[in-house]
């Protein structure tokens, strides 16, 4: 229980302290102190009714203590005076009135002046409440390396003057896109197997959705992740990959799918047709029965126009294969070939289309190319099975 409360409250407490103290390191020390006090006290007396408010109040006291000590060092003679003034102030602390500054913290952690891997690590640490060792394990680096990465990022925030604030209006779209990209990156690290990271990404997106309720792309991203997550159990049969069409639908998490669809409606109500909202809408159509392929094709076209991405165009080809047949799809894939030659999924898609057209020789060759580019055993075994079926 302690562990869970800590993880849920850490971001809220740290954000408040960074805002209050204006210094990441000091804030971290004060937060750690508050959580240590909580661990001891709750062990003895049981947890309070509102652990979050309790932690915030304790953190605030701990921060004021720190400020006082710093001031005491600076002007020893006025020690008593300062102490009294601060204690008066502490009597009327109302934890619910303590501002929620997690949004500011999130924008600081995902600032483009930090390297992407630092943004990811810092977001998980500061907002997500993960411990350094946990993040290190998730990204397959040593705890020392992760600690250095986090320290370096925090030092840069301080010395380069990276602001602790929500960006101004004209900067907001680009900066929000950076935050969403970091959350999606965390999710995709998790989607590849480390399930707890995917759950962390969803948790972060939920927080962001409560903090920015008018941003359609936040709902879009959250919906997209929920739709992927809903199919986690069905994506593997033992160690083997199962494609969408062959998945056992009884393994899908219908609750998550329903939630995702509500979020998509909310995004659309905000006139959201950004890349995440569109991808979520596509993912939602893909778990419907029957699947509306012409509609999916249309949404992919919109997404291509928005992003100019050849990978998205490849996905559109897959939808075209279903709505208009493999011949039309193959024409798109062939057009993409020079640009995506080093991309495994171009060759596996091409192979699949050739197989459906009965051009088995060429299909075999294309599966071979895909195999040569495949990462991971599950992907490789999947392609080998397909190849053997020919």
């Amino acid at each position, binding site marked *: 229980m302690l562990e869970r409360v800590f993880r849920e409250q850490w971001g809220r407490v740290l954000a408040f302290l960074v805002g209050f103290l204006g210094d990441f390191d000091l804030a971290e020390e004060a937060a750690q102190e508050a959580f240590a006090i909580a661990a001891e006290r709750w062990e003895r007396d049981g947890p309070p009714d509102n652990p979050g408010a309790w932690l915030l109040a304790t953190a605030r006291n701990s921060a004021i203590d720190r400020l006082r000590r710093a001031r005491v060092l600076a002007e020893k003679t006025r020690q008593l005076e300062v102490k009294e003034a601060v204690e008066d102030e502490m009597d009327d602390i109302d934890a619910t009135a303590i501002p929620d500054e997690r949004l500011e913290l999130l924008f600081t952690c995902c600032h483009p002046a930090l390297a992407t891997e630092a943004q990811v690590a810092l977001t998980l640490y500061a907002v997500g409440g993960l411990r350094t060792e946990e993040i290190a394990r998730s990204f397959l680096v040593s705890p020392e390396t992760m600690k250095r990465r986090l320290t370096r990022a925090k030092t840069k925030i301080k*010395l*380069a*003057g*990276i*602001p602790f604030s929500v960006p101004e209006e004209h900067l907001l779209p680009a900066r929000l896109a950076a935050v969403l990209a970091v959350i999606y990156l965390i999710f995709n690290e998790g989607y590849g197997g480390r399930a707890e990271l995917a759950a962390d990404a969803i948790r972060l997106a939920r927080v962001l959705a409560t903090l920015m309720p008018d941003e359609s792309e936040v709902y879009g991203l959250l919906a997209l992740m929920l739709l992927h997550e809903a199919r986690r159990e069905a994506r593997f049969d033992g160690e083997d990959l199962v494609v969408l069409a062959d998945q056992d639908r009884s393994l899908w998490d219908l609750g998550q799918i329903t939630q995702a669809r509500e979020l998509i409606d909310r995004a659309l109500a905000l006139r959201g047709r950004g890349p995440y909202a569109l991808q979520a809408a596509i993912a939602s159509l893909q778990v419907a029965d029957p699947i509306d392929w012409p509609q999916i094709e249309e949404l992919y076209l919109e997404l291509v126009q928005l992003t100019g991405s050849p990978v998205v165009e490849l996905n559109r080809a897959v939808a075209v294969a279903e709505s208009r047949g493999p011949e039309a799809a193959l024409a798109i894939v062939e057009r993409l070939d020079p640009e995506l030659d080093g991309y495994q999924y171009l060759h596996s898609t091409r192979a699949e289309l050739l197989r459906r057209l009965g051009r088995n020789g060429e299909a075999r060759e294309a599966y071979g190319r895909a195999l040569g580019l495949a990462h991971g055993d599950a992907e490789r075994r999947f392609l080998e099975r397909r190849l053997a079926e020919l």
Partner: protein
Amino acid sequence: MQYALLVYTRPGMDDGLSEAELQELTKEYYAIREVPGCLGGGHLQPVETATTVRVHDGQTLTTDGPFADTKEVFGGYYLFDADNLDQMLEVAARIPAARLGGSVEVRALVEEPS
């Protein structure tokens, strides 16, 4: 906080520009000095006119150059007083060198003990 914007240019960056275009660029560089918070700046003479000094065992060694054989050369700087990095990143993006194949390095100054 105080910041230095260090402007790096690519040798030959201005080649082929007309007189009018060059004047337009100069105007842009001067406009940066009018941005609120600008404390000053300087445009350096070409790197070929530089003289490099090193002291080894008490002996002063003076060499001509360096010559512009590197990709980017330091060409000038601005000094600013600003609230945070975001303000400086916006100003930096307006400096012509940034879009002409050069770059602008944004560095905060170490605070002087008061």
